[in-house]
């Protein structure tokens, strides 16, 4: 029996290696260019926040006015970093889970280059003053169909892989991954057509834009993070997913509720009244899928506390999942039409929630996935656990600070706005200290990502450690008989305990 197990384990390892090999170029390209866009976005974010604190900062330069810099910051964060990290993880995940090599990596890589080119053109256009002014859809109109085409070339092979899978049961992770892959083009195409092609009432365009923003968050970033977390948690801990039924509830509630969110941002606007109310109810219900996803992945991880302490991938993923839980619960509490919604509707809370969703929840899980995937596709181990720790700590403190400060500051901001007997200035002034602190927190996040980007770049240049020992955060392998660096693959594959 043991002979048989060993053989099938070896076949598995060979298949995994082949899959990783088939996707190494596009996945590594998505991660590295995504990380570069993240750095660009953080710089722009710091400039935008600095201008909120001191409006005179760089006021002589039209290219860096608040409206343009902030738009460029969010666009690069969402499409430069977020989408690319998601593409890299999703195509790799589906290939692994359907146990098939990807045969179109050249086309995916080319489409990835096209995507980057379009993002670059779009960002320069925004800074040059040619943005559309529609939140999260700031790129000039003609960029969007091209982005969708690039997306089709990236994602279609993965959908085909899923369609022709020979594996029987569809694993939890795949539900979310395929969901994200299908929802993304639906949301983008719908919003594009309704906002830019059909000349309807501009008020309705604002509603569609709010829906789009929510849709990208809850139907693309959140399920992508869930897919990665549902893959990494059992994979690294070696324990099965805590509860199948809970995961099923999480997926279907998200699928049903997600598309309804967003319109609550237009409460009080003269649009059909049920839209904001349904939006508010759906935003409250978002708490349920996040609880379901978080409980089942966190309990899976918690069943192996040792792994949790040592594995960078698991540590990042767990933090991301906790952020997801916080995001869901705060979505439940901050969207009540007659109490909290007026405080969050037009205040800086919105930004805090966006950052919590994109950086806190989504990006942390993506970092976890990247720390897991990159050693496999580059055949090198991460160089420095200190770099990973720096990335983790500064990112975590930074994002907690940005989210908490924006949410709390936003509540005060909103209260000032509601108090209409007072001047608008006083509402803005009450948020000022929080803006200041957000600026400092962004600097932390940028600092942490210098380590991440440098580390990833070194891995991309194939300068990683050559060892059969993974880079772990604990001191587990310091007393290894082979020394701190581990044996140099001498014992052969499969000889080292799983991480």
């Amino acid at each position, binding site marked *: 029996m043991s002979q048989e197990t060993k053989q099938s*384990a*070896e076949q598995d*390892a060979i298949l*995994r*290696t082949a899959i990783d090999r088939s996707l190494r170029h596009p996945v590594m390209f998505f991660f590295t260019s995504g990380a570069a866009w993240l750095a660009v976005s953080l710089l722009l974010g710091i400039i935008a926040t600095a201008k909120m604190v001191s409006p005179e900062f760089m006021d002589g330069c039209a290219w860096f006015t608040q409206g343009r810099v902030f738009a460029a910051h969010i666009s690069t964060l969402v499409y430069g970093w977020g989408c690319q990290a998601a593409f890299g993880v999703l195509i790799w995940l589906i290939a692994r*889970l359907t146990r098939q090599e990807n045969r179109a990596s050249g086309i995916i890589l080319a489409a990835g280059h096209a995507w980057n080119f379009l993002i670059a053109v779009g960002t320069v256009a925004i800074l040059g003053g040619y943005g559309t002014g529609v939140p999260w859809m700031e790129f000039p109109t003609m960029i969007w169909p091209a982005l969708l085409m690039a997306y089709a070339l990236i994602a279609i092979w993965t959908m085909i892989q899923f369609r022709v899978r020979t594996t029987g*049961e569809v*694993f*939890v992770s795949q539900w979310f991954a395929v969901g994200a892959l299908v929802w993304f083009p639906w949301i983008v195409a719908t919003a594009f057509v309704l906002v830019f092609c059909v000349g309807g009432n501009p008020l309705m365009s604002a509603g569609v834009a709010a829906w789009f923003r929510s849709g990208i968050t809850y139907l693309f970033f959140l399920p992508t993070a869930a897919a990665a977390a549902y*893959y990494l948690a*059992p*994979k*690294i801990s*070696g324990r*099965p*997913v*805590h*509860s*199948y*039924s*809970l995961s099923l509830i999480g997926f279907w509630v998200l699928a049903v509720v997600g598309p309804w969110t967003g319109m609550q941002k237009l*409460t009080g606007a003269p649009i*059909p*009244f*049920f839209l904001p*109310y*349904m939006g*508010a*109810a759906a935003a409250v*219900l978002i*708490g*349920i899928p996040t*609880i*379901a996803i978080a*409980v089942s992945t966190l309990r899976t991880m918690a069943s192996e506390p040792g792994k949790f302490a040592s594995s960078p991938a698991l540590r990042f993923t767990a933090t991301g999942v906790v952020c997801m839980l916080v995001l869901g619960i705060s979505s*439940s509490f901050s*969207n*009540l039409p*007659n109490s909290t919604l007026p405080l969050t509707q037009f205040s800086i809370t919105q930004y805090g929630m966006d950052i919590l969703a994109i950086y806190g929840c989504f990006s942390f899980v993506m970092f976890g996935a990247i720390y897991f995937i990159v*050693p*496999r596709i580059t*055949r090198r*181990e991460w160089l420095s656990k200190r770099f990973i720790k720096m990335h983790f700590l500064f990112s975590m403190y930074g994002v907690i600070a940005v989210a908490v400060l924006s949410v709390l500051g936003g509540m005060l901001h909103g209260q000032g706005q509601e108090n*209409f*007997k*007072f*001047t*608008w200035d006083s509402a803005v002034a009450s948020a000022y200290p929080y803006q200041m602190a957000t600026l400092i927190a962004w600097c932390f996040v940028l600092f942490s990502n210098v380590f991440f980007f440098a580390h990833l770049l070194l891995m991309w240049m194939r300068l990683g450690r*050559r*060892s*059969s020992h*993974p880079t772990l955060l604990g001191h587990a392998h310091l007393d290894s008989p082979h020394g701190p660096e581990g044996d*140099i*693959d001498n014992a*052969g*594959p*499969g000889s080292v*305990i*799983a*991480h």
Partner: protein
Amino acid sequence: MSSSSNPNPNSRPDLDDTINVTTTHNSESMTAAAARENRNPGSNKEPLSIATFAVCAVIFIVAGSVIGNASGGFFSYNTNIKPEYVRGKAPGVADDVALPPKPILDVYVKKGQSLYSAKCNGCHGADGKGDGVNYPSLVGSAWSTGHTERFSQVILNGLQGPTSTGKVYGAGVMPAQGGGMSAQDLAFIMTFIRNSFGNSVGDVVTPEMAQAAIDIAAKRSNPAAPVTAEELKEHEKDLPGEKMDPATLVDPITFQAVQAKK
């Protein structure tokens, strides 16, 4: 790998770039990372815990109350409008915030343009040139740019028969436009036509003059009939009223003359 000097890479003192660990150790088809991975252990069928269920139930009830609170008001626009909502003013801002004043001619022409597009566009066209067959041109027309009283009576009462050029157009009759038109509106329209499409009389028809025109039209012997070229001969004069300098600065909302801020 292609180093001919030393065929056995394992005998090198240390690893360098010419040695690939995986090929050296004959495991090209398998990486250590992939080999040490766990198999995907699948999912457990653990039942839903009471605590999770309770929290989800609370969220469900809250969401239900959101919908419930909107009952009866799903298509109402009133619930979100705060009574007496007037934002407090920033310090240093005067009580009655006024828009910057503009020359009266510009303000009247702009207002007149929107009235023209509502009332006159259909026949005389957006460029004021009519179509040359059914509808006459207003551009350079002797009646449009000539005496204001004659022009005002055409607008207020309509016109039958030949126009200023003596030509009878296909439409034959222009319907009266005076119904429901205030003196202010008439002043806007007349000022607009006299100073647009290439017409540049440069004067302003004041509301006072326009009121006089409305009074004249009311006193006509047959107020229901359109005027004719014959009748218009009686009106070959300008409307009574004090002339205004077209450069006078007025408030663009109230149309009252204001002093320019120094």
